[in-house]
């Protein structure tokens, strides 16, 4: 994540501060098509994809800010009748972070080149760059691209459905 992105994120409400990096990049990008594509990929790893990040604060510790976190842990420890020692240990423990945050903190890029790591195990880009395109409306092979959002459709009919129901959905 570059500085500009993180700065703009910091200016956002603390509620949404901890959105994942791809989403952050998407939100800060001026290019609608890139935004839509990145947001869509990020959504594939969400646990509660139907619930918007901002609404999810009650459910998802990861999106709470630090004050809420402590409060929630206190509440939890009371509810589950933990001992004082455990409750203290709990508060001392860091709030859960996303894997990508932990990965960033691990500074794997500082490892010597011969050491296997999470990054080195990534499969890498495909050797053939040819991408098949499926109509986002009906699933058939799609030869047309929406000029606004970059999504694909196969026919006028699907284009109309696209414009009516899903164009720029992730960006709106």
């Amino acid at each position, binding site marked *: 994540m570059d500085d500009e992105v993180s700065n703009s994120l910091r200016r956002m409400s603390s509620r949404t501060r901890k959105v994942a990096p791809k989403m952050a990049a998407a939100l800060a990008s001026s290019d609608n098509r890139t935004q839509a594509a990145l947001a869509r*990929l990020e959504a594939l790893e969400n646990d509660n994809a139907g619930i918007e990040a901002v609404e999810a604060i009650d459910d998802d510790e990861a999106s709470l800010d630090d004050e809420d976190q402590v409060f929630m842990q206190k509440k939890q420890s009371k509810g589950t009748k933990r001992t004082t020692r455990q409750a203290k240990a709990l508060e001392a423990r860091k709030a859960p*972070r996303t894997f990508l945050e932990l990965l960033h903190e691990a500074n794997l890029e500082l490892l010597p080149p011969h050491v296997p790591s999470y990054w080195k195990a990534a499969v890498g880009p*495909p050797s053939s760059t040819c991408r098949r395109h*499926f109509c*986002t409306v009906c699933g058939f092979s799609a030869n047309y691209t929406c000029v606004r959002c970059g999504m694909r459709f196969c026919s006028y009919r699907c284009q109309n459905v696209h414009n009516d129901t899903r164009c720029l959905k992730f960006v709106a």
Partner: protein
Amino acid sequence: MSPHNVVVLDNGGGLIKAGHGGECDPLVVVPNCLYRPPSSKKWLYPNPLNPTTTTTTTTVEPSSVTEVDLTSAAVRRPMDRGYMINPELQREIWAHLFSSILHINPSNSSLLLTEPLFTLPSIQQSMDELVFEDFNFKSLYVADPPSLVHLYEASRRPDGLVSRAQCSLVVDCGFSFTHASPVFQNFTLNYAVKRIDLGGKALTNYLKELVSFRAVNVMEETFIMDDVKENLCFVSLDVPRDLQIARKPGRENLFRCTYVLPDGVTHTKGFVKYPDQVHRYHSLADDAPLAPTETKEDMNNTEMTEKPEDRRRVDLTKNEFDLTNERFLVPEMIFHPADLGMNEAGLAECIVRAVNCCHPQLHPVLYESIILTGGSTLFPQFAKRLEMELRPLVPDDYHVKITPQQDPMLGVWRGGSLLASSPDFKAMCVTKSEYEELGSARCRKRFFH
């Protein structure tokens, strides 16, 4: 130490498989999450899965978690992208598992725990704290999944190549990601492991997205859409052909299936409306030529095929939806992540890259000992399609042999159970006092191969 004092815990991102070392199968398979239905203020523990639905490879019965209505339930998982990021939540889930389901006392037990490859040191430390400080296990051994799968398969066929060559290529397509891992002499060659950042969770979310845009909004229905995926998705052997078939009207469309969502009154689980529709595509012999059809879609040429409006005309109050090409376009992602816009190679190339990182002498043996494991390899025709894609990428004089595990969701656990009952196991563990003396990082070196 009797193997029965060893708790074997395969702590997956989707499912926990847990039981006693030395036994054939885990005592319990339970989702590694808490869930909260809209009607509940509290987060609840999911019930263990019915063992019959986890050990059979195909099932038409809905395999949802419980009798509870999981419609629109929110989910909290301790694992993110395959790694344990929330020790608090994991502790809650384990505490319930140990006391209420397994009925074990950790302070009398050793633990064999699986951990994904390349787990970050900070996560390993949190794990060790959980095991020794929160639960007081007597001792711990941490194993990586591919080596356990290899161990199990080698023991099943002592005369097979995997056992004789002490070598295999484990392809694990799980909940969070997919790994191709060469294993040699029971050690995973971690410098050669390759990973695709796609697994069952992303596939379910992709299916949610497709259905939500085309028929009914199911974006909040994680549990239901898992069931849809498990029962209806399959791997296509010929995508352009199947896309054509998926547009045909009526009975000519061999893929159309209707799924009925729970209504919360008469049924709390979804189900396939006409179970005989599920397997109709099997009548497609893969060599039977399809009657020639237009391959290039013309903007105006839609009379012959289904109109999108027809799909959208589904009565939303009926609480059901049809699937056609979604059934194979979802697992298709594992073979071609680029179609989604991901800049990652597909599974066949992933395997080739893993093999190419190994010593050339191992290449022919690895291609001949490919083992498929993980829940996402359960899609019908998975192995066949993989072979079709892999064969052209492998030198002609090498054999390609792909062996799907019998119960791919249990393979890792079974290998762990085997290891836990071996005479050497005790010596391989780190004891609580060693942990207290040496700390996490130094203890971990013992598990490093």
